[in-house]
């Protein structure tokens, strides 16, 4: 394998891998936000919540 082949292969792997990861993280991250806000709302309504 040449340096040239390595870097071009790496460019495509990184680009495609990041695109796929972005889709997964965007959807599951949005779900995590909903969960986080629900949990925070719960904590905010609890008068014994940590300060």
């Amino acid at each position, binding site marked *: 394998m040449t340096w040239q082949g390595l*870097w071009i292969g790496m460019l495509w792997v990184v680009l495609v891998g990041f*695109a796929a990861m*972005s889709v997964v*993280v965007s959807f599951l991250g949005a779900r995590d936000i909903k969960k*986080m806000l629900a949990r*925070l709302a719960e904590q*905010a309504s609890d008068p014994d919540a940590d*300060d």
Partner: protein
Amino acid sequence: MRSDFFLLSDILTFTDVLAHQSLYAAGQLSEVVSGTNFSTIDWIIVVAYLMISVVIGLLVNRYAKSMAAYIGAGRSVGTWLGIATMTGTELGLVTVMYNAEAGYKGGFASFHIGLIFGIMVLIIGLTGFIVAPLRRERVLTIPEYYEKRYNRTARILGGVILAIAGILNMGVFLSVGSKFLVGITGLNPDAMAVPIVMTVLLVIVLVYTVLGGMISVIITDFVQFVVLSFGVVITTLLAIGELGMDEIVKSVEANMENGFDPVAADSQFGVSYLTFTVMMGLMTCAVWPTMVSRALAMESDTAVKRQYTWSSISFAMRMVIPAFWGICAFVYIHHTVGSADGLMAEYFLDSGEGAKPDGAYAMPVFLGRILPIGLIGIITAAMIAAFMSTHDSYLLCWSSVLVQDVVAPIKGEMSTKDRISYTRVFIVLIGIFVWAWGLFYEGDDLIWDYLAATGAMYFTGAAVVLGGGLYWKRASSAGAIAGLICGASAVLGVEVIRGKINDVLGTQFNHAEFGLCSIGFSILAFVVFSLLIPDNPSPGHSALDADGISDDPFTIVDEGNRRLIQ
């Protein structure tokens, strides 16, 4: 006195040269940047995006009813959201700029930096090297671990070195970010655009940092991640479509000395550079405070490992893709020779006397030419958001270290209110320093090399002392202090100091060789002093008890620390 004199004369000569160069080059540069596609519609997109981000931040801040929610988002951040925010914070505008510059000057060979960092993050994710045991120690900051494992002197010394290195490191962020905005929007550099943009950005960031809470930071980080991900992929495909991959490769082969082999003597890099990058990759990914702070806030060791493992992809991406944009800028500029847009080549390729083109502008100017109206606005807005999220994290991080690990241990007793007040004062002071440093400092090193040399001042000693403390039973406080001091010697690799040393010694060492020497000195000093001066032989002794509370008059320090985060 002698060294002070030399420094002063250097500064005077340096500013004279800068003034001369800017007179020559700024006129050309203003014409070059004016060819951008950036339009009024894009300005509207930028303003709307930033306003929406601020509104989202303010809306979600109503959830911050407690200190826990305000500072730590109630420890409710899931793995996927954690990955998005880690990427959002670490993919800053300066990251894009320094990698683009490395690609512009070093070609495809610069990809080795992204490859090495991606592999190192993956290794840490799979093994939990340093970060997993550090999290098990239940400390909140790295210097706090120094006190727990060694003594208070190590904590204060470690805090001082960390803060100085971090502040010097971010010293170029503001000017580099401003160059991107000037380059892509076509603002006139002759009309003091860079200092004005620097000032405006700094004021926005300071207000945002002082007022913003962790919940709003996380939500806006997530929005930034989504927008930037989309923008990064589309921009890369557009660049390939514009130039053609075959043409990019051919042009690099024809016009760059060695644009593929990073270990070749005639490349921009070389063996010592690559070796230092490997060491640096492992050390920074394991001990860089803004990364480690996220690891320490995760719910478990497993979550930390998963976060690092997945982030290895985005860590490789954040270096490889901007470097590729820099390569595309290089190719595009060479294509403009003799064309209607030939002024670009005239500015960036002309090596006439006195002219010193600023390669940092190449990538934003290139993007300004190829991105269509609308998309260019979205990319610019996301970059400004990236700039802000990096700055607020870094400003908060270094000011917190100064308060928690330097001022508080020295003062003894400090209330939470005092700590917050001191933190805000330090945020403003660091902001002012970064503004002034950004205006003054313009060394000839790559931006990446400057960041590596200043960062090494901290991470060299920190990695040795942390790794030794976690994995070697005979590590002692004397060894830790010696290791930290020797590690800080890496700052000698910064161009302004390194040049003087090379002149005196008649050598031509680069920053990587200085860095490798510092790593060697740090390890050697740490081991030798640990063996020669062992700690008090009371097994399991630490300055802090199991709850991280000190058993001496500084108790309030760690209590306050914990209250701020929990």
